[in-house]
């Protein structure tokens, strides 16, 4: 019993140690500048370990995953990122979410080619994210 408890106690420290890398994915864009800019913003936030950005027309959907132990300030992280991206690209309609559902779905959208499908899916995800319990 003691051994198991001790192991369980130690595991997180190992994981903390090797979690420095960030994965940021952006879907195919025409504009290289925005691509790099969004990557930069997400990369600069050390509260986030992964992010997906989907561009459709002039909309930008950013789905990020906060580090699990920082999840309690999820809403703040969302707000901060949104503000930073909006400052950089004032003419983009930005939506940021730290919800796992959006992250999971945008992962699939990264591979998607059909513009129409992407746009529909982004709309749907935004609606889902706004739903209350």
């Amino acid at each position, binding site marked *: 019993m003691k051994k198991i408890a001790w192991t*369980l106690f130690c*595991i*997180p420290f190992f*994981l903390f140690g090797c*979690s420095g890398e960030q994965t940021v994915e952006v879907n195919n864009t025409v504009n290289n500048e925005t691509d790099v800019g969004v990557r930069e913003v997400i990369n600069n936030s050390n509260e986030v*370990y*992964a992010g997906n950005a989907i561009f459709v027309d002039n909309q930008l959907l950013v789905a990020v*995953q906060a*580090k*699990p*132990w920082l*999840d*309690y*300030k*999820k*809403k703040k992280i969302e707000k901060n990122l949104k503000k930073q991206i909006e400052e950089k690209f004032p003419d983009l309609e930005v939506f940021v979410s730290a919800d796992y559902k959006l992250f999971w779905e945008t992962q699939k959208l990264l591979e998607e080619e059909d513009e129409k499908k992407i746009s529909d899916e982004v709309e749907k995800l935004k609606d889902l994210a706004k739903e*209350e*319990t």
Partner: protein
Amino acid sequence: MIFIDFLLAFVIGGLICVIGQLLMDVGKLTPAHTLSTLVVAGSILAGLGWYEPLIDLAGAGATIPITSFGNALTSGAIAEAEKHGWVGVLTGMFEVTSSGISSAIVFGFIAALIFKPKGKVN
């Protein structure tokens, strides 16, 4: 990262249960008293606005313990109070749906139809 996410659910869910166990063993409360106390605690945490961050942090570790029931009812009432003022406090309560209760009623009813109490096994 996913592992830490699960670990947080485990630890925080487990800690809430430990509080319950302490209420039973040290406080000498019956299970009904313990659960009622925890529900009230959940309501108060919701009123302070602390329960939502806890859910964001621990996921099911905070939504599965009975404290989340108090949170659901209170945040419903507060949300309605914000919109409609005094009346909202009451109506908000009745607008809240808790799947825990409704599913317990449905499954309890179904269970009554198919199961028989078992006193044999110990």
